[in-house]
């Protein structure tokens, strides 16, 4: 009898889900979408604060989308106010580093140096880069949260990475 046969289907599903989750997390970390800070956030989630990570992530999405809009508006002006652009990028960098979004944060760093040089083409390119990274990350995070929900619905606990 295989080991799998000792478990019910639900447990099997749960284990599968958990494995899937772990694999996914490993890949996310490997590809440096997220870093250690995200793990810290997950540690803060407990019984008194069950949806801490989810709340933080939704706030991050809201914030970031607003910032990206502001950035593209600012760069579309006839006379680009680099200080303003820099301020937005600074904010974005802050929030992405708080949440542990490693690649987004790095893209923001590059963006900031282009802002300092007042390099318009560089800024535009960076904005595209940041936007792309952000949407990739968003995708990953949404998948992550969905997996966590599924695990919790199946009655299990989210495994620690």
């Amino acid at each position, binding site marked *: 009898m295989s080991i799998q046969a000792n478990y019910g289907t639900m447990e099997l599903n749960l284990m599968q889900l958990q494995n899937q989750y772990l694999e996914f997390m490993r890949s996310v970390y490997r590809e440096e979408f997220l870093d250690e800070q995200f793990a810290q956030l997950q540690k803060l989630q407990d019984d008194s604060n069950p949806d801490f990570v989810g709340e933080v992530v939704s706030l991050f999405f809201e914030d970031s989308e607003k910032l990206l809009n502001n950035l593209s508006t600012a760069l579309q002006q006839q006379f680009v106010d680099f200080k303003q652009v820099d301020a937005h990028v*600074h904010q974005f960098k802050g929030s992405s580093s708080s949440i542990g979004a490693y690649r987004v944060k790095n893209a923001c760093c590059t963006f900031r140096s282009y802002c300092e040089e007042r390099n318009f083409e560089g800024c535009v390119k960076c904005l595209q880069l940041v936007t792309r990274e952000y949407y990739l990350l968003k995708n990953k995070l949404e998948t992550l949260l969905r997996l966590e929900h599924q695990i919790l619905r199946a009655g299990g606990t989210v495994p620690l990475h």
Partner: protein
Amino acid sequence: MESCNCIEPQWPADELLMRYQYISDFFIALAYFSIPLELVYFVKKSAVFPYRWVLVQFGAFIVLCGATHLINLWTFNMHSRTVAIVMTAAKVLTAAVSCATALMLVHIIPDLLSVKTRELFLKNKAAELDREMGLIRTQEETGRHVRMLTHEIRSTLDRHTILKTTLVELGRTLALEECALWMPTRSGVELQLSYTLRHQNPVGFTVPIQHPAITAVFGTNRAVKISSNSPVARLRPSGRYMPGEVVAVRVPLLHLNNFQINDWPELSTKRYALMVLMLPSDSARQWHVHELELVEVVADQVAVALSHAAILEESMRARDLLMEQNVALDLARREAETAVRARNDFLAVMNHEMRTPMHAIIALSSLLQETELTPEQRLMVETILKSSNLLATLINDVLDLSRLEDGSLQLDISVFDLHGLFKEVLNLIKPIASVKKLYVTLSLSPDLPEYAIGDEKRLMQVLLNVVGNAVKFSKEGGISISASVAKSESLRDPRAPDFFPVPSDHHFYLRVQVKDTGSGINPQDIPKLFTKFAQSQSLATRNAGGSGLGLAISKRFVNLMEGHIWLDSEGLGKGCTAVFMVKLGTRGCSNEAKLPYLARATTNHMRTNFPGLKVLLMDDNGVSRMVTKGLLVHLGCDVTTVNSGDECLRVISNEHKVVFMDVSLPGLDVYEVAVRIHEKFSKRRDGPFIVALTGNTDRVTKESCMRVGMDGVILKPVSVDKMRSVLSELLDHGVLLEAK
């Protein structure tokens, strides 16, 4: 007889007379006819003649008169009636015109006369204007000369050139025969001939300054004519001819501190030179006013130019002096450095070389003491031991002092038994005191901690020195030593107004007072006590032990311990009180603090470490704020969040124990908030801890944080463990020892 209408002449004519009349009439007519012609001719020539009508009238009058006389020619002989009628007509007309003319002339002649007067007036005016023009021109000439002279004089800063140039230019402009400058001598009593135009090197002619002519010239700032016989004017060998007029003017010699533009003509300390100008002797020239004015102006300019030259000379001299001084100072500094180095070398060598034999002597003597000795031998050994101990102390003192002065002495801080130290000193001093029949009392205040952190050895040295002095200089009575913890009232001693000890939770100030009933000190001598090697005479007559270094060294040690030492005495024979305060660390403060937030791990998990700790978090980034808040809540804190400096100041209260500020906010208002928070809480202890959270710990950020008095800096991102340790350190020690 045929009747003719002839008219007989008036009277029978004489041939000759008739002829003359005839000729005269003819010429009169001629003249009368030619006059209007002449008039017309000349008037036509001249451009202006206003009275044409008069001319016409006059012409008519003349012509008619001429006509009358002409017609008269025919009336000498028999003439016809026609002629008579014409004659009459002519006469009548003439009469009419003459009367008219006469009447006209009444009006015209005054006018004509006034024209004449006006002409005269204008001529006078023209002459006057000419004169004035001449004057202005002369003035302008003078001005030009002055400017040129000034330019020449001011184009150089060399005193001699200035004066020489003045004389040369003046001589040239005014065509002088001789021009000389008399300068006052150093004594101020005489004037010495310094420069002349014609003589190349004037030999020292001198003239007393009190000569009336000279005084007169010095009394006014105008150029004064002086007699050519006066001593200052006797510059040329007296020739055959009349010497030319001489003028003298004063030249003020200004000093730097006299240079006040406002009272330019009135100078306080007046030193003048005299400029003497002589016109050529055989010319009949006189000094004109404008020439005198020129001389006066030039004299003033010369004064200014001379002062400039003097200022320049002064500043050059000062600069040279400074350079010399710099060189000398440099040399002195190098010598001093060499001396210090030499002394240090010497001390380093002596340190070792002197101590070694000393130790040998002391050790061996004490060993010798242990052996079997006769009483005389024992006495001798004891003396050797005592002397060598004294010598060892002296060597140590000297070496210590040098090291203290170098600043290379460092205190050996350790925990020691404070009470025990006092007891040991007491034990050391009791034997000596009892020999002198002096009592010694020690009182330790109850709040004096048992243990303290500091340099035990040096504290004992200070205490021994002070107590030892007390014993040394008392012949009867006793010593009382009291030690206590300095309270804030006693912290400010009127004798030491610049000593402001500030106790804190980790330190306290030990106050030791040693009172003796000895010979006392003259209050005037007290300051000298702390200087090295100084001993007042009265003290030296006592059993003089010690080199006078003791108190100096004690003072240095006390200063190193951030304290203060002083002596009080009411006078000779009235005893002396020595007091010193030193800063010592309190032992075990970290273990004894009873804080409610101490890490008390619950059995299950380390989750709630700081229950109820009220914390204020300031961060303007939503995500970052939420994350940090979650972190702090996870550790059990009661977190209030604000997202701006103003809100932070509004919300903060003394319930908040810690304030976390995100300083990645651009702009300085984060630091300002920190300052305002400090201001809000009068005592640092009531206020919260302020910790900065930042994305970069570069030196600038750290320094800015420290400058505004923040208690710590943390690098983001913060992990749970890091935050936990930060909070622990803050609450336990009151300071974040490192910003990780």
